[in-house]
């Protein structure tokens, strides 16, 4: 994940009802980077999957913070929520394997009560 400030930030309630907004934003930004339709679709799913991992642990009535970084041919997305003693998702688990298959890079970080999943997808990567 780049060190500089994100190019785009989105804060939504930590509630699956709002994920469509996030997916739409992801698709729009990927389009700016000239991703193909297939790559856009994969990114949508990946962002959805990442949120699916974070949401169950997020505190009730809290927010999901999403940061987007637009590289030349790479879109990086970071999804963060405040939780109650969060556990990082199991890297042997199913969901993680699927997410890894859809992304160029992927990692999760637990910092105190904050859980973050960061992923990126580079255009043209067959993933």
């Amino acid at each position, binding site marked *: 994940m780049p060190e500089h400030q994100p190019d785009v930030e989105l804060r939504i309630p930590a*509630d699956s*009802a709002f994920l469509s907004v996030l997916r739409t934003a992801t*698709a729009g930004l990927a389009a700016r980077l000239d991703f*193909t*339709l*297939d790559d856009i679709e994969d990114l949508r799913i990946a962002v*959805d999957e990442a949120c699916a991992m974070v949401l169950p642990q997020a505190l009730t009535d809290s927010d999901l913070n999403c940061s987007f970084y637009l590289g030349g041919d790479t879109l990086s997305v970071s999804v963060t929520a405040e939780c109650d003693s969060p556990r990082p998702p199991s890297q042997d688990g199913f969901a993680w394997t699927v997410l890894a298959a859809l992304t160029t890079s992927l990692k999760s970080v637990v910092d105190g009560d904050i859980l973050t999943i960061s992923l990126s997808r580079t255009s043209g990567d067959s993933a």
Partner: protein
Amino acid sequence: MQSSSRTFSATAPPPPGALSSGTTWCACTSLLVEHLARRFRNRGEPYDDLLQVGTIGLIKAIDRFDPGRGVEFSTYATPTIVGEIKRYFRDKGWAIRVPRRLQELRISLAGATSELNQSLGRSPTVNELAACVGVSAEEVLEGLESANAYTTLSLDAVESHEDSMLSMIDAIGADDDALEGVENRESIKPLLEQLDPREKHILTLRFFRGMTQSQIATEIGVSQMHVSRLLSQILAQLRERLSDESLGLGEGVDGRGVEDPGNHDH
């Protein structure tokens, strides 16, 4: 190859070309298909159809998989399965209600995408599509969004909002005497959870979004009669389980685990 059934686990799929009639594979690989199909379930296509399509993708992946390459099978299979499901949507005439302008745009986009897929040997970028169809990139995105048409109000979304869930249950109760009554609300909630994704989707469309049966039929691509039958079945099921509950019959099934014939390691 014997025609008797052989089972394969997800960690050691059959070698390429090994599939023939009478060969079965472990239930655990179908978990991958379910997991991926679930991602597409709110687009108005029956979940069962998505499972079938996804399984075709799985078969293709198994057939082409080369364990010698050192790639995990699920990593390899995921794009193939997802690709198959995405292609299914592209080939289907989406029966989701959108403004005429967007319908026409989607038709142009579908045609152009298909042509460009051929000529480029890959899927086009938004700019390439825009240039080909003669619209702005933003319009292309609009067209793509309407094609995706995610239902924001899936049952999951409803469940997370207590008020929405209660008003939906009230709507069901208003429609069905046996299911009405404040005292039933708490009992109905877990019963709704037990429904399969397709049943949940239909109930949400009917009682949360207030769609008529023919609107639902158009949205999910079946006949109105079928929707009517499905709704009756689902409500009958709910009524039955509700009365089982009140008679203290609880979950109903005995505690004996039934051995799953598909779960053997090989």
